[in-house]
């Protein structure tokens, strides 16, 4: 699915009566991405996470236009089309097992319990997540294992647009290889955008990459 972004603006207002200034996180970002993997690089604070959250419909843009498949896409439409894997893998219910978490978030995305479990098992295998870890309570998992669960949550939706924010964070070598293979496989039919501070991993995963600087796309490397 073709994703077209024109002049995207996102401003976070300062907290009321704080005396602070609003933060212009996206200052007219424009990009195009189609089926395949597009990397988005940039320094800390350059706007990568804000860009991804806006493209996922988690945040509402303050300006600019997003089109998906040639049609204008508002935040509600983007939430239907895109799955977002955040850079922090802790947005789960800690007292529930990884499998129960995936079952719950699967239901929010419209999956049946059987579908969610099936997909979780298949993806766990690809990402080298063991069955006992899948059944373990989430707060007992290591940070890297949490990241695998977070990736499974995003991949299992099988969306037309997949936004992976620092997907390699905390993963061991085997899981990184598994993830690279999975991204390559999925990207044949999916528009995948990913960020990574590792140039090697970014180069391995993405056929082209964009550089974000101060909320704007500052360059592209094929």
């Amino acid at each position: 699915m073709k994703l077209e972004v024109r002049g995207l603006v996102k401003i976070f207002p300062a907290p009321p009566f704080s005396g602070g200034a609003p933060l212009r996180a996206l200052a007219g970002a424009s990009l195009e991405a189609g089926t395949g993997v597009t990397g988005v690089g940039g320094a800390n604070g350059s706007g990568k996470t804000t860009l991804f959250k806006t493209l996922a419909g988690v945040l509402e843009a303050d300006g600019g236009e997003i089109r998906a498949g040639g049609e204008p896409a508002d935040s509600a439409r983007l939430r239907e089309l895109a799955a977002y894997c955040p850079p922090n893998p802790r947005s789960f219910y800690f007292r529930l097992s990884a499998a129960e978490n995936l079952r719950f978030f699967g239901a929010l995305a419209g999956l049946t319990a059987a579908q969610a479990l099936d997909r979780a098992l298949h993806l766990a295998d690809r990402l080298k997540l063991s069955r006992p870890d899948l059944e373990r309570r989430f707060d007992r998992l290591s940070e890297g294992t949490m990241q695998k669960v977070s990736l499974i949550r995003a991949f299992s939706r099988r969306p037309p647009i997949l936004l992976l924010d620092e997907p390699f964070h905390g993963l061991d070598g085997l899981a990184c290889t598994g993830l690279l293979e999975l991204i390559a496989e999925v990207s044949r039919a999916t528009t995948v955008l990913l960020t990574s501070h590792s140039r090697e991993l970014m180069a391995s995963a993405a056929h082209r990459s964009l550089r974000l600087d101060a909320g704007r796309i500052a360059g592209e490397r094929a």
Partner: protein
Amino acid sequence: MIRLIAAFIRRDFLSEKSYRLSFALGALATLANLAVFYYIGSLFGGQLAPELEPFGTDYFTYVFTALAFFGYIGTGAGSYAGRLRQEQTQGTLEAALSTPLGILPLLAAMSAWNFLFATFELLVYALAGAVVFGIRFPAANWPAALLVFALSAACFAALGIISACFVMLFKRGNPLAWVLNNFEGLLGGVYFPVAALPWWLLAVSNLLPVTYAVRAFQLALNRGAGPAEMKGDLLALAAFNLVLLPAAVWLFGLSVRRSRRTGTLGEY
């Protein structure tokens, strides 16, 4: 929708069950409340106060019924804000709202577990009321009571959703919850009939849906009043629902949208 509600109930049940002591204490609290009823009953027995005459019942039966009823409908008022706050602090709200989940299904499912547990408590109260305290409602008009129950529960759920808007926007500091927690019991006729209040407090009491809900429920249960006899109270509750329900859904949608704009969905 049913699958979604079931998913929320399963999640909340598993989560509550994992805190074993708290889960057990929660169930025990239901029994402890029964002890309070027992001592109220021993103290006041079958005494009749003039303010209770319209209801045709003694103080114990009045307060037992009102507290059990208020306990259930109060679930709607408190649980939305509570659940939302919990999602904020555990960092799951943003993840849940990154999905295609709509506002209406979210509101329908969010407090389902709380209502289920409140139903369990209500059944325990009803059973204890009948078996331990020998409370009977020979004149009860059950269909009318059920109608009052449904109207009241919807009305309080709407208030609870509006209260959750404050949590969505301000995270902490919820003036509506403060009013609901501190004044509904006092001014709504839960612990005593509102006729016992001075005229100026009675005027305030008439602005609260709980006043109409408790009075209508008591009349239906103790006097067997039908819709015709409770027309005023039922119309008031219907009017509250007509205004509050759409307003609550609209305001909640607006506050989620505002949080998406300001980027505060993930804040607590």
